[in-house]
């Protein structure tokens, strides 16, 4: 029973955060001619995505109730992908 409430609460949060991301876009912060505000909005929006992903992985995918090693396995894949992207992008800056 409590799990059901927990899942529902998370669902509401996820929908709200997605809406927030779209709202940030509507406020004009995502202005491709104004790098200052653009990169702020960029940070906010991606941070929200990470928060949402963490909620889904932690509760819907039950990582919270698995041994920590499963999380590390998943993070390992993420780390590899980020390392490739960051280093490759940096190499041409």
């Amino acid at each position, binding site marked *: 029973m409590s*799990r*059901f409430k927990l*899942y*529902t609460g998370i*669902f509401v949060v*996820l*929908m709200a955060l*997605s*809406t927030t*991301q*779209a709202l*940030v*876009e509507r406020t004009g912060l*995502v202005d*491709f*001619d104004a*790098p200052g505000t*653009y990169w702020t*909005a*960029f940070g906010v*929006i*991606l941070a*929200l*995505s990470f928060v*949402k*992903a963490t909620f*889904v*992985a932690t509760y*819907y*995918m*039950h990582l919270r109730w*698995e*041994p920590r*090693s*499963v999380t590390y*396995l*998943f993070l*390992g*894949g*993420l780390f*590899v*992908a*980020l*390392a*490739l*992207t960051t*280093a*490759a*992008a*940096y*190499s*041409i*800056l």
Partner: protein
Amino acid sequence: MSSVKRWFVTTNHKDIGILYTITALFFLVLGGVLAMLMRVQLWSPGAGVLSAGAYNQAVSAHGLLMVFWFISPFAFGFANYLVPLQIGADDLAFPRLNAMSYWAYLFSGLLFIASFFQGGTFDGGWTMYAPLNLPTYMPNIGGTTVVLALIMFIAAVTMGSVNFLTTMYRMRAEGLRMRDLPMFSMSILLTVWMMLFAFAALLAALMILAAEHLFGVTYFSAEGGTLLWTHLFWFFGHPEVYIVFFPALGIMAECFQTFTGQRIVGRKWFVLAMVLVALQSFVVWMHHMFLTGINLEIKTLFMVTTIGISLPFDLMVFSLIYTMIKGRIRFTTPFLFSLGALILFIIGGITGVFLGAVVLDYEFRGTYWVVAHFHYVMVGGATGLFAGVYYWFPKMTGRMYDETLGKLHFALYFVGFNLLYFPLFVAWETPRRVFDYAPGLTSWHQVASIGGFVLGASFLVMFYNLFKSMAVGEEVGDNPWEYSTTAEWAVSSPPPLENFPGKPSYASGELSFRDEPELTADGSGDGKPVVSVSPRSDGGVASGASETSSGPRSDGGSVRTEGATAGGGTGLVGGTGTATPAAAGTATTHGEERHADHASFWPFVVCFAGFLTFLGVSGIRSGGVYPGLTAVGAVLSAVGFVGFANESFYVPEPTVAEQWPFGGVENMKLGMWTFLASDVVLFGGFVGSYLFLRVANGWMHWHHAFIPEAHVTFPGLVNTYLLLASSFAVVLSLVAAHRNSSRGVVASLTVTWLLGVGFLINKGMEWQHLFHISTEAFPNGWAVGTNVASSTFYLTTGLHGAHVIVGLVMLLYMIPRAWRGAYLDDDSSLEYFGLYWHFVDIVWLFLFPLFYIL
């Protein structure tokens, strides 16, 4: 069962190991013949037996076949055969997946062979550099087929990696700690870890390349595109060197231990060094890119990491040398090959340092220095694998090879190898991948060509030896090697179908076979277990076997009867049986359940269907028989997967096993998570490519120049809502199953399905709209190949959409089952599906902002 049929339906790890080995040897011969053709061509500078185009094809196919279809699968023949034996498991965790992995490997190779007959095979070099790999420069259908063959090969590799990781983490014999794995198993463990991530990056690169050929996306022809290919390729390509070399290193370590009677000196440090190399291998890839336009700081950084990676290797080399010094060497054939591999690797390693230094690399890149260095490393690795052939031949066949012929093989091999490759260091000014060279280098090339034929001939000796010995070789017992210590030598040769007489256990520090609980419970447990050698869990030298070891040696056949009566011994077989395993010959239902007939025809069918489909897709744009082949392949795939899913296939999970660090995570769940970890890297490759190209084209410029006004946030937001809701519905199905509500499960799964379909419809409408917009900037719509932004958008979200479709197909299978009341007692299938579905959801959570907002 007829003996031919057996090989098509087998799922036993030993059978599959043999299939892998034989198939790999076939590709060795094929790749070797191509190499011989090249050496004939290079006998003198200028034109020869091959046309320019044929030479390019021979070079490319030789490289690709040897690197992909020979060397790693050859090592995985041994891995399949031996890892379960070494860790005390009955089989791999997923036997049918293992069979599927083999068939996917075989058919991917056949696909490659088919490419030769499609107007010419791939001719852009094994590194497949852009833009040469693009349809503009490679209009042959065969070029596309090779890309698809590689994709199918990676499917095989991924299935294998997931299977091995799950097996090695979850099915080790009691008392066998990870750090104590025998050296060969340890090397395979690290290899599959590298494979899991490295091949996922290559898969991303190849899927993009296939999309360039089939759908006309423009990644690699865009600004920064050629550099993008090198990044993706070498992010895979450098770890690949160690993926190839590590199994050989493991075999070398085993052979050094066995044939010097000396445990590897500094074993712990040796293993740590291997772990370090495996990690470091992912941060050195740009040393292949010193001549590209990447910035100088990062070149310097990668020079440092590259030279740094030689340090752990130094440690391993010295450890092997000290092992020889401290032990008493017996120069058997496996030892000679191991020693040869070490020498070749040392030469290959030293010459590699030249290439790792930025300044020297400017001089050597694109010359035969690279060719020579590369072959010393890779063929050096293969040398270690041939040590494995001789080392385990008696175990696999029960007969001994001919030692004299074995030594002759080694002599011809080693002399031929060095005659072939050492002159290439001297003739280093020869341009790579070109059949013409300065006439002054002719004599060096002639020596090399002679060496090539000696090397080739040495294999005739090997094949003759192995065939003859298989029939008339001296019969050997369980263990022909005096100081061998790993568990495979404790069972008969060849090992029985179920591997072990009872449950292997290392709980006492030595290998013993614990009886089935029922047997010991009634006090009849004596005498049954047989331990012919006493391997220690870490594969070190057996107690009493050499003067350096310590500790009294208990009598071989120690049986842990006390464990069997305690709780740990119960439930080995589900605790239902009353039959005694001693009476297994009477084939009670219980016994049949335990050693269920694991034969399955479906892995073969599915992979054959995949072969037809890929072959059809390769030429689908050119009509002819190809669309028909695609259709037949697709239908047969569907039949195959349904058959596969409906077949009851029972694999008991060991209840007494070491499972650190994944205790409490069932095999299936761990397999799913492992697969998802590789999928993260696949999507990472796609998203990373998008980010890289966007950086290369100017982040803001991208938005201004390439994106139409009509590409708005709203459809993406709707899809985000739909996917999140569908995730919630999947979670609700678990809640319903928990409440024993069959209708609840059906309802929530159906809602999931409808939301997923809604997602696809919404996406389809959006795409239709974008395809057909007609603005000043995009008068012909914003199609797949319009520009780099449209290409990245459609391909990345398309890959995601394909994941959604796969999920929907799974639901179509699950909903009727739920209707019939499945999943109420055991909701694990719902959970595994949920893992997949939520993961696809998570990916979208990032695609949405990156492709719609920012």
